[in-house]
């Protein structure tokens, strides 16, 4: 067991967990934050995407020891965070959500992109989302959602 200290959605966390416990399990099983989904568990589907130090990562591939002192952000932060909230609204407005299983991961990857590039091109959006698989929508509406969020944020700024 290790004493794991990290920041989760802007709140300090201290937990006793095995050093090889995955961040995905820490979030879902220890902290009961089930917005982050478990899909393939090998880094291929992106359903478990969270932000770690402002970069999108697969939480299924992160062990507790790698999260020590990191800043983690999950989809639950959409309750407070302007950019996540705007992305969530845009996904709903453009019809980018069907079953919704991939959506939290898509939104986290999209936020990582918007933190880097406020006005991303279509190609930049496709590149940023290439690790997130969706089996329902065919991606067109998802790309539109990210464009709409970028536009909305730019207008507000």
């Amino acid at each position, binding site marked *: 067991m290790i004493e794991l200290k990290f920041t989760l959605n802007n709140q300090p966390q201290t937990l006793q967990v095995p*050093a*090889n416990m*995955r961040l995905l399990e820490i979030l879902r099983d220890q902290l009961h934050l089930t917005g982050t989904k478990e899909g393939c*568990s*090998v*880094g*291929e589907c*992106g359903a478990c*995407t969270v932000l*770690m130090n402002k*970069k*999108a*990562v*697969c939480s*299924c*591939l*992160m*062990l507790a*020891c*790698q999260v*020590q002192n990191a800043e983690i952000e999950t989809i639950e932060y959409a309750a407070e965070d302007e950019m996540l909230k705007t992305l969530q609204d845009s996904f709903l407005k453009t019809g980018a959500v069907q079953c919704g299983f991939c959506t939290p991961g898509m939104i986290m*990857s999209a936020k*990582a992109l918007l933190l880097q590039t406020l006005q991303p091109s279509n190609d930049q959006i496709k*590149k*940023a989302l*290439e*690790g*997130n698989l969706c089996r329902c929508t065919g991606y067109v509406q998802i790309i539109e959602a990210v464009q709409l969020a970028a536009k909305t944020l730019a207008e507000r700024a």
Partner: protein
Amino acid sequence: MKMYKPATLQETLSLLTELPAKKLLLAGGSDINILIKQDKITDENIIYINHLPELHGIDMCCTKLVIGAATTISEISHSGVIRQYCPFLADSLHDFASPLIAGFATLAGNIANSSPTADTVPLLLVLDARLVLKSLTTTRMLPLTEFYTGYKQTRLQDDELIIAVEIPLQYACRYKPQYIKIGSRTALTIAKAALAFVKYDNKFRIAAGSLNEYPRRLYSVEEYLSLHPDDYNDNDLLNALKKDITPITDFRSDKEYRLQVCFNYLQKFLKSTNSS
């Protein structure tokens, strides 16, 4: 399984000397963490090294680029220094996994994991890259061409750690190496075949991935082309290639396709070099 997080590089090297043979070094963990989850790693000692500052960063030192072992794939592909001196290396990493993995997967991890399909290795082989290997008592340089000895076998000693990858800038780097990765799709794919190619001073450096037990230089092809730079014929070129690669049929592709696609790209690279 026991996990260690040494506080310093020195402590890491001591641990490597003291611990029994079955041990794994963990930095990004994009491969190892899956094996842990799948219970395929059970009794190994795992030494976490990603937090060691000596293993990070990209520097220009005189005539070489020095890339810290735990530098991530995204850090390399976005680095201003790499973009300036080795832009084709940055471009070749564009299709490495996905941003969700490239953000924490490390360069030395890709090399040391010793996958036959390691994406970074073919290009580094033609760039004459060297590994800086450190133990408690020694530091040595090993050309990447000599690192692998068989499937998942390397010359890394039990007490050694890769601390950096060096790329000399005065040779191949100046001549725009070409690189192709063939997969089922562009993003997040494992290569069916990969080929890196550069010609300079009438010498050829050619390396392939996914076509042997480990990524390696194609010495027979290089030798044939150095004797026939302008008058090579396809038959002899193909025969030389067949001496260098041992493609297999598996769930990802078949050996006939792998040979053909490698040969086609070899011809394509040769034509583009001869016409420029």
